[in-house]
């Protein structure tokens, strides 16, 4: 029996075998979608660049030579240098760490929060549902970027506060999705069975309801990553996100603005990094949705 047969077995012997089998099937379906693989490659690239930034970057991201300021792209400085003579490529490479940190933190805060609110609302129903979803709807009907801006204004600029502000604006979508998902299987017999075994409500929600909402939430989070990156870069651009000398991409574009007419590369290069990474999450998210959530599959 090959590993493949073992993975695709119709009657797995252990729970682990079943799970690995599901994962294998998903990976196989994803691999058939070329655009999703392009997105996957971009995300993998981002992870690798962020992990090995100090080794990949040819120069220091914070120290520059003033003699070399505002040099156009060349063989020694592939993306040119900025107004302090710092190598832009090195800064973009180190910036990958900041972008990745922001995206991961926002996802880690907002997805579980949304999942919790949505599953609790959906499972309990009644007034709990009405109150929680009313709250969700209010947040959902407000402009996310402006909300994040106002929160940052109150909390003060900086990466941590930018993360909190974006997460506060991001969770309602996940709550809506999770609730909708819960409603589709709320009356299912397996839940009655668990209840009759005496499981507590907390246990049912945490161990039996939430896992079933995971896939649609993961899809949505991946699709939202591009938006989160753009919002974070926007906050950086306005001077409210990462503070200098941190090489955050949005802040770098903002610094390059003053030289945009004569030294176009200073503001342009970090922008390409943002576009490529956002595109990667969009493409991968689209692919994931097609595999995990066939109901939502986009036609054509």
């Amino acid at each position: 029996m090959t590993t493949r047969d073992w993975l695709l077995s119709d009657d797995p012997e252990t729970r682990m075998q079943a799970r690995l089998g599901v994962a294998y099937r998903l990976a196989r379906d994803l691999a058939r979608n070329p655009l999703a693989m392009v997105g996957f490659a971009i995300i993998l690239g981002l992870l690798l660049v962020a992990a090995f930034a100090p080794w990949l970057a040819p120069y220091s991201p914070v120290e520059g030579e003033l003699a070399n300021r505002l040099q156009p792209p060349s063989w020694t400085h592939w993306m040119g240098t900025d107004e302090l003579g710092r190598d832009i490529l090195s800064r973009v490479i180190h910036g990958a760490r900041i972008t990745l940190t922001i995206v991961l933190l926002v996802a880690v805060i907002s997805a579980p929060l949304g999942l919790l609110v949505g599953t609790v609302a959906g499972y309990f129903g009644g007034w709990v549902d009405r109150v929680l979803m009313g709250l969700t709807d209010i947040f959902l009907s407000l402009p996310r970027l402006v909300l994040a801006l106002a929160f940052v204004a109150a909390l003060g600029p900086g990466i941590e506060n930018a993360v909190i502000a974006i997460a506060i604006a991001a969770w309602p979508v996940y709550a809506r999705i999770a609730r909708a998902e819960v409603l589709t299987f709320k009356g299912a017999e397996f839940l009655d069975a668990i209840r009759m075994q005496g499981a507590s409500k907390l246990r049912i929600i945490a161990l039996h309801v939430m896992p079933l909402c995971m896939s649609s939430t993961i899809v949505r989070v991946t699709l939202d990553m591009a938006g989160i990156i753009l919002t974070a870069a926007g906050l950086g651009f306005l001077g409210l996100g990462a503070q200098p000398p941190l090489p955050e991409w949005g802040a770098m574009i903002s610094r390059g603005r003053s030289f945009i007419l004569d030294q176009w590369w200073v503001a342009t290069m970090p922008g390409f990094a943002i576009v490529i990474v956002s595109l990667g999450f969009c493409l991968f998210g689209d692919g994931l949705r097609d595999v995990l959530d066939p109901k939502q599959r986009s036609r054509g």
Partner: protein
Amino acid sequence: MTRALPAFQFLLTLAVTFLGLLAITFVIGRVVPIDPVVAVVGDRASMETYNATKEAMGLDDPLLVQFARYVVQVVQGDLGMSVSTGRPVAEDLARVFPATFEMATLGILIGVVIGVPMGVIAAARQGRWIDQVIRVIGLAGYAIPAFWLGLIGLVVFYANLRWVGGPGRIDFFLDGMVPVRTGLLLVDSAIDGNWEAFASAFSHIVLPSFILGFFALAYIARMTRSFMLEQLGQEFITTARVKGVPERLILWRHAFRPIRVQLITVIGLSYAGLLEGSVMIETVFSWPGIGNYLTTALLNADMNAVLGATLVIGAVFVGINKGSDALYRVLDPRART
């Protein structure tokens, strides 16, 4: 009764949403790490002065009372004074809002006029190259930062090609030459018959509006395409084709008609989104609108102005969203329950 109830429910949810918006700006105003009393009396004031001022400012009252007072103030149009401009925030906002409205409206017009036909064509030519092009544009709308596109637009179309005017609403030597009637420069200069000012204002608004319009059209084209594909797969289309109805008529008369109502919601959503997107675009183009006002206030830690601008943008956003939702319910018999 059956007719009045949905209208009542609609107004109720609208009121609750606005109240929620007010609650959020109220909370934001409270979590600011600046002590409003110290800001007034200074940090050397005695404890008695501090307490007396605190009481006079109403900060001793329960939070709920303070919130109620805040709601009443806002409803009366009092958003407090701006620290940086020294004028009432409400007055400032009324002055800057038309600039944003003008730009966003032109943007949504561009988005609809180009985006809808693009979506229809993409659906009609599903899978062909034109469909792929439109797909790429749609993706670009999700992945490109608006402020970056704005900067590139300035470099290419203003600095290099000289096709459009630069930052600002009008050339500086024409600034203030047009009497303010509506606050919309294109309208005001046309009423005034000042065509030089009109041309200048137009050359300044074209680029930011097109960039906003690009993001609107990316979304509108995508949604139009998917609505059209849904219609084109229906049996009545097949029937029409079998009857020999020309393809053009099938597209625009049979398939497009039923989706017009759905498109209203999409257009409403993207219009509201543009108001938000204008915050970034206005910063790039030094456009004296509400977004620029908000970001300037942010950098000056002018909290009254920040909260006032957030409130107005939020209220317009909510208004457009709920309004297009209501319009959809009225126009589409199937959505009536």
